[in-house]
């Protein structure tokens, strides 16, 4: 992992049903500084659209949204 992708907060969202993964990311984004990164792991496929849509509409950035071994892994950067 590169230095610029240092994780500031890990969120285990496994087992949460949509839209809760998006809700949890939104509730926790204020816990990292601007420029900070949350790594979130979810299991509900709906999060693959929900979390990027939330990021776009709130002006934050999804650096990564990938399916890894049946789980959905997100790197979300707080932009403002």
């Amino acid at each position, binding site marked *: 992992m590169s230095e610029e992708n240092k994780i500031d907060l890990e969120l285990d969202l496994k087992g949460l049903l*949509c*839209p809760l993964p998006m809700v949890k990311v*939104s509730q926790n984004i204020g816990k990292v500084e601007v420029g900070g990164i949350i790594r979130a792991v979810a299991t509900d496929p*709906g999060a*693959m659209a929900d979390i990027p849509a939330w990021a776009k*509409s709130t002006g934050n950035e999804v650096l990564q949204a990938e399916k890894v071994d049946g789980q959905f892994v997100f790197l979300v950067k707080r932009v403002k």
Partner: protein
Amino acid sequence: MDAQQLTTLAGVIDKKMNRQLKQYIDICARCAICKDACHQYVGTGDFKYLPARRAELIRQVYKKYFDKTGRFVPALYEARDPDDNLLDELYDSAYACTGCRRCMYYCPFSIDTAWILSVAKAILIAAGRGNEMLGQLADAAIFKGDNAEMFNDVMISGFEDIQEEVRAITGNPESQVPVNKQGADILYVALAGAHSIRPAAVIFEEAGESWTISMFEAANYGFFYGDAEKARLITKRYIDEAIRLGVKEIVVPECGHAYRVAEFFYEAWSKEPMPFKVSHILEKVDQYIKAGRITVDKGLIEGKVTYHDPCQLGRNGGKFEEPRDIVKAVTDNFVDLTPNRAEQWCCGGGGGIVAMEEFKDVRLASGIKKVEQLKASGASVLACPCENCRLQIEELNEVHELGLQVWQVIDLVVAAMPLKGKKPMQA
């Protein structure tokens, strides 16, 4: 707050306060019967959660601007400007309210406090003090709807995974999760989560239904936020899609507010007739069972089963019997909660409150009546067709160590179906 802002807020109040709402704030007899109906007042004993007190705040602002007596002798009529203190009080009153309307059911004048509080939300939004979380979730849904093509691939891939799971459950390699199927009879407007699609797909497929899903979901945070225009836009996405696909009927999932929005509010917001029949998924499932289109076995569910009426589906939606008939079709060991149906206690999780961390304490405290009901029932399984209710009850279950299994009704149905495939896990 400067004069310009006050004028703006007065304009919002004037626009929102229709004849019925004015009548409500005039006829309240201060009898306080509603206090024993509100789970939040009962659970906390905090005066600010007394329904009539919440409505009183709106009465005070209204009197200040639109009633001669309040304008000229405000102290006598407790008329108040919407200053920061009042806005803080309005915020707590309005966004904590779950919109359960149990207070209205018991009020001798049927005063709809939740509706009065929609004025409070409009004032707060106009003052830039609407709940941030609910606003963000509403905006995310609108963005997702406006940019559906951006999410097309990930959503299709998710639906394909769900289809594989459905085939594993039915044991039928032909089972489908049809997406955007032109000319289907039914558009099932699911929630974003796979748990809302998987069991519904099993049931539709086994019933031989002509159905489809689309890219658009039923949850509506614009409604909870208190912004009718955002709520209308979120709903309009699936209405337009249903028109495009040429379906005959829209079926909404196990979600209380989604049903109420589609069945009761959309026409008022859009000022157009709803072009389709709107059904709740449990109405369809009840019909399939009664018509023999799906088979359920009574012996497959273990333990005593009870049922919670979500406020938006039961008291505010009138759907009491279909879910009970379904649960009774899958078990002989059913016990109702007391009280039930229109008198059912709100679990404390409605109105978007589960997404608002600042109300966590009042939310959990307000669940005490539900906990007492569940304990008294002696049930080990709870069937509950609302996402927000299930989240709240699962948390109460943990905090109070109730040892309950909390199920969607459609999961209970799938668990009771004698299918060839492997039994699914509970959602």
